[in-house]
């Protein structure tokens, strides 16, 4: 994998919430790369920091959340830009033009008192020097492309006049209206029924073929990840514990947490009576992250004296990266 393919590079990203009761390290040293035109799925139990990580990329974390450190590099046509330290002007430029976002609740993430069309037109005119009429035509065209019937009429509809699936399509139309190179989709189908979910995922795949943007698909549902992902990152307690090609991670996960997560998920084709193994133990409370490997209290392979003291770093295993001390030796043995 040649490095000039990389579109977005996240290094040691840390986003913390400074609360009265202590500090919540929601994102605590995330390393990730998104390649041009590919789909990266971010999976993990809810609360592991996927959304906060995604918001950090566009610096959309509300206080008391704060990016404490790290680098986020976006490789644009005209050279790389760094986002953690970016000034407001650069940030506003990157938002939507380079990186757009789709959120979980299409009803809540669109303004209910503005028409769909006006919200798309606003985005287009914010980033491109086009007139109202032209932007409106673009909005209609986008609504058409995301499969909204009668786009010329729907452009003047309010979000509450559409069904959940149609709303999410409108949201996607808005997200792609400025031709971003990366689309971040944070649980875009979680609020939808199964049929609509499948339709939206298919739509995203089609649009990716058409527009060529990369997608960061955030989901707690391994099934969704399996359907769309080229590459996959498994997160646990604010860190990426395993990162690699999707089919490899799904078929033979290396990190004990990734293995447990896969065992706990119902799989297509697996007999429905097969017992699902729950991951043992509980997610630790947010203020008290375990020392060493944060997964060690729940890990079957934990090595006493090592896993509870040494924090594992990213270790290349084949063409994956795994943050687990079990694979430490392999690295050392390498020439």
């Amino acid at each position, binding site marked *: 994998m040649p490095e000039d393919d990389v579109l977005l590079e996240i290094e040691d990203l840390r986003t913390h919430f400074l609360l009265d009761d202590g500090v919540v390290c929601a994102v605590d040293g995330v390393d990730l790369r998104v390649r041009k035109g590919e789909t990266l799925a971010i999976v993990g139990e809810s609360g592991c920091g996927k959304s906060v990580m995604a918001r950090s990329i566009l610096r959309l974390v509300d206080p008391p959340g704060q990016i404490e450190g790290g680098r986020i590099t976006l490789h644009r046509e005209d050279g790389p830009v760094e986002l953690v330290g970016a000034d407001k002007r650069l*940030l506003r*430029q*990157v938002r939507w033009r380079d990186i757009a*976002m789709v*959120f979980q609740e299409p009803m809540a993430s669109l303004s209910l*008192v503005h028409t769909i069309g006006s919200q798309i037109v606003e985005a287009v005119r914010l980033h491109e020097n086009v007139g109202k009429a032209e932007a409106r035509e673009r909005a209609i065209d986008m609504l058409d492309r995301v499969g909204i019937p009668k786009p010329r009429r729907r452009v003047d509809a309010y979000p509450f006049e559409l069904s959940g699936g149609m709303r999410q399509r409108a949201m996607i139309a808005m997200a792609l209206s400025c031709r971003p190179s990366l689309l971040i989709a944070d649980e875009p189908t979680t609020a939808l029924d199964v049929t609509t979910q499948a339709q939206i995922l298919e739509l995203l795949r089609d649009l990716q073929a058409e527009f060529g943007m990369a997608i960061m698909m955030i989901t707690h549902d391994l099934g969704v990840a399996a359907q769309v992902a080229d590459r996959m990152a498994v997160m646990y307690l604010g860190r990426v514990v395993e990162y690699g090609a999707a089919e490899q991670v799904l078929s033979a996960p290396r990190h004990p947490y990734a293995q447990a997560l896969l065992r706990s998920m119902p799989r297509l084709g697996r007999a429905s009576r097969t017992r699902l193994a729950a991951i043992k133990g509980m997610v630790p409370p947010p203020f008290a992250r375990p020392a060493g490997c944060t997964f060690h209290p729940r890990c079957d392979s934990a090595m006493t004296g090592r896993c509870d003291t040494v924090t594992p770093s990213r270790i290349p295993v084949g063409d994956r990266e795994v943050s687990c001390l079990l694979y430490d030796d392999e690295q050392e043995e390498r020439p």
Partner: protein
Amino acid sequence: MLGYFGRRLLYVVVTLWAISIAAFVIINLPPGDYVSTLIANAQAGGEGLTPAEIVNLRLRYGLDDPIFVQYWRWITAILLHGDFGQSFAWNQPVATLIGERVALSAILSISSLLMVWAIAFPIGIYSAVKQYSWGDYGFSFLGFIGMAVPEFMLALVLMYIGFRFFGASVGGLFSPEFQDAAWNLGKVLDLMGHLWVPILVIGVSGTAGMIRVTRANLLDELYRPYVHTARAKGLPEWKLLLKYPVRMSLSPFFSTVGWLLPGLIGGETIVSVVMSLPTGGPLLLSGVMSQDMYLVGSFIMILSTLTVVGTVVSDLALAWWDPRIRKRYKRE
């Protein structure tokens, strides 16, 4: 839409009709009637009325007609001629009495309202956006003081300060030399010079309350996903705040804006009494105390009408402001 408001209008008419009956009953509640009051007044003045005069008067006012005929005469006089009857205590038409004060009441209410909005909206928005900042704490502190201090006390303190340090007679709305003068530039300026005190007094508690409401309503909206979307689109911060969460947070405001209507005429009684302002409130109060029934009944009629109209105005304002409401009306 029209269907909905057509039905709405029908309810309004029925409500107003019921109110007019209530007002009429109140007017006729005290023992005696207009003519017996006239007789009493005349006797008190030492000039008795002859029985013929009395009969004439009773005929003229139709006091021996059936009650519903009297009601009909009363309500048609109001509707067709704006004639609300005669005030016993003032010996003037009620319409003249109230009319004189409506303009001043309205000027006072509207000016203090504008002051409240002009101060409260920006501060409320600031306090919500900068929640828990020093500025927010400071404004909250001032706001609580503003809400806690009774209006009459603030009025008295301001009048005292005005009198003691500026030698000004701050009571009333005019200096003695302009009291009965015809309107001219001097009188307008004199009015301005007096008006700021009651505006301030009335505005302070309103402003304090409005800041709290604006802040709370905006805080409800500020962290909603649609605000994130707007920010993610790359809008400048102040623009997106005004266009999205602030706009949403104003819906409750529009749904109550019509309730301000009755206040334009009858509000702020205590402040007006303390500062001897010639507004509607004290007139109503004096009418109640002297059993000036036509005056009181008319007030009730007018205030109730304004309240009912105000509710409709609120509904219209909200429909204009919020497409969700508009569409619902259209469907109904």
